[in-house]
């Protein structure tokens, strides 16, 4: 049991984060053409709407929920000390989870039944969606049947993850957790591990900067004013503009 715990909660996270880092950077650098959200809306739009919208909004809420619990665990525990507030947090995240769950199932059905979509579905797409389904299922199970779900992340996962990030792994508390909770944690590491090899890279290139950049974009080969000015001395390093 210890070997298993050591593997899943010490070795796996390190492998996952390392592969994630090296993999995504190298995919972004050397296989840029393959970094895309691979939208399939052009072939089928209606079913996508009912899947993609609840799935994405739900998963973003859950993602940020986990992030907050990781960053400010104390406030979450404090918040949860009042049963009503605990209930509120549990219910609102559960609604998000249901959105993700339903959305994902619809997306999955669309992937395997729609003739056109089948043509743009890779094995990896199927794998990713099954993995995410597994993840959301274990997460929801934890939330429903183990009533401390939301505090657990703050009290157990936060210190554990911190210990991982500070290279002094401490797995005593995680190892003592129920099986389904553990599966949820392992699933998370597998997802992180798989990001560079799947379509999941798309959320790393979220174009937030679009909000403040100007509408128009013009690119010159060289700095247009300087390049022909007689005052600019000729050198290999001419004034660049892009």
């Amino acid at each position: 049991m210890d070997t298993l715990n050591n593997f899943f909660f010490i070795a796996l996270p390190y492998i996952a984060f390392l592969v994630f880092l090296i993999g995504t950077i190298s995919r972004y650098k050397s296989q840029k053409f393959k970094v895309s959200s691979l939208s399939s809306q052009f072939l089928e739009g209606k079913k996508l709407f009912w899947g993609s919208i609840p799935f994405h909004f739900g998963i973003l809420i859950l993602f940020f929920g986990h992030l907050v619990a990781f960053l400010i665990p104390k406030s979450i525990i404090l918040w949860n000390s009042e049963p009503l507030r605990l209930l509120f947090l549990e219910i609102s995240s559960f609604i998000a989870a249901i959105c993700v769950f339903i959305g994902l199932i619809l997306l999955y059905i669309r992937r395997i039944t729609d003739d056109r979509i089948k043509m743009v579905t890779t094995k990896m797409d199927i794998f990713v969606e099954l993995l995410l389904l597994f993840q959301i299922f274990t997460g929801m199970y934890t939330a429903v049947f183990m009533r401390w779900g939301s505090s657990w992340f703050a009290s157990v996962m936060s210190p554990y993850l911190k210990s991982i990030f500070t290279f002094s792994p401490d797995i005593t508390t995680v190892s003592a957790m129920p099986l389904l909770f553990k599966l949820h944690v392992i699933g998370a590491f597998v997802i992180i591990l798989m990001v560079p090899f799947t379509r999941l890279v798309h959320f790393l290139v979220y174009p937030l900067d679009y909000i403040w950049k100007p509408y128009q974009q013009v690119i010159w080969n060289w700095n247009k004013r300087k390049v022909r000015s007689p005052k600019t001395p000729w050198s290999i390093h001419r004034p660049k503009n892009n």
Partner: protein
Amino acid sequence: MDVRSQISMVFHLDKCIGCHTCSIACKNIWTDRKGAEYMWWNNVETKPGTGYPTKWENQDIYKGGWEKSMGKVRLRGAGKAKGLLNIFHNPHLPVIDDYYEPFTYKYLNLIESPEEDTQVTARPVSMITGKPIDIKMGPNWDDDLSGTPDYARNDPNFKNLSAGEQEAMFQLERMSMFYLPRICNHCLNPACVGSCPSRAIYKRGEDGIVLINQKVCRAWRMCVTACPYKKSYYNWGTGKSEKCILCYPRLESGYAPACMHSCVGRIRYLGVLLYDASQIENVAASDDEDLIQKQMDMILDPFDPKVIASAKKNGIADSTIKAAQQSPTYKFIKEWGMALPLHPEYRTLPMLFYVPPLLPVMATLADNDVESQKGTLNPISKFWERATKYDTTNEHIFGTIDDARMPLKYLANLFSNGDEELIKETIKKLMAVRLHRRDVTVGDLNKEMVAESLKEVGLNAEMADAIYYLTSLAKFDDRFVIPPAHREQAIEMSEFTGDRKGSAGFGFVEKPARGL
């Protein structure tokens, strides 16, 4: 003044014969690939008709282009907050059925089928799924179908025409049509660029060609919505958007783009325009009535010493300035004022201009009373015994314009944002040149009348001859004045040219395969 140079185009619609050679030339070079089968970077539409994708001009459906709001322009269907919120599912994205599902035929059946009682057929199969389909649409599905209820009558440009006027256009005897070849307009205020969240689309500074960087495109598919001309296409195979590249690899080596080079009717002209980039925002946000005038005013006189000086200061090469001075498009657009942008009301400031068609407009039936004509039709030879068909010469000079077969309002909805006077002006110019040339070659017209008609539209004999030359006789080098591309600058950017060895030629070493 911030002078920039732009490769611009003029299509002379009077000359287009609707042969689609241009579309095929483009398809063969650029879009004969998986995921791109349905794309026609160059397509030729029959007008009146619904076009490709179906009813693309109806922005209530497609939400393309810019709209004016509070003295500025903003994207109608994509853009900023709207774009980012709709990123998971774009509600205004056209789907493949709005274009057509690409298909081929199972030709092998014809050869390999075992002997059967019935005739073997080559069934159509979808090029997406490979399964048999019933073809409902195809490229140029409505070719030459002017007057048909499914196509012509659904043309969005009829919006301001009365029911009577529309009906009159569809009467068999009066039915008329013309062809509208379309490519990307390489706009000055491109909506596609404005809508791209990952900033993959850009305008090249040197020549104004609008390109999509295939390595930066992330399939957020906003450009497809934003381009009001629907000239940015989504490649469902690679998961990247693509558009007309104005054959830049050809332009850079001095060749005309393939569609233009192959054009049978020689309707296409290409040349440099110098324009004042500091005005783009203002012009795009100007009032509906001033839109065209202001767009024309942005285009600068390449002979003006002040313009030349600021062009040089801005790093525009002497060779480019020279090309701008010889540009055939400058002549059509500015000097003669005969070319107009397609749908200026989309506010993208398109750089492809059209000389509106004269023939279907002007050729009227001498006897407009259709009823009385019915009787004169020979029932067997289907021929009018009285010469009542076409009449293009008449004493009133421009008298027939108003009761032309193709209502001016229809043309105005296409090319001048509803301004009929502007269309009338250009049509009159086309007419005056014809009168002048008839006077020169046949000499049977009243000389005074010819001189008067030229004067009325602000032309003189010399200009009319120049228009005639460029319209009818111009050789390749007159129609395409391509500035040297100065690619040495781009090559130098990689500093060591050996970097480019072994690459696909456009700096693309990676196999353009779909991601996982």
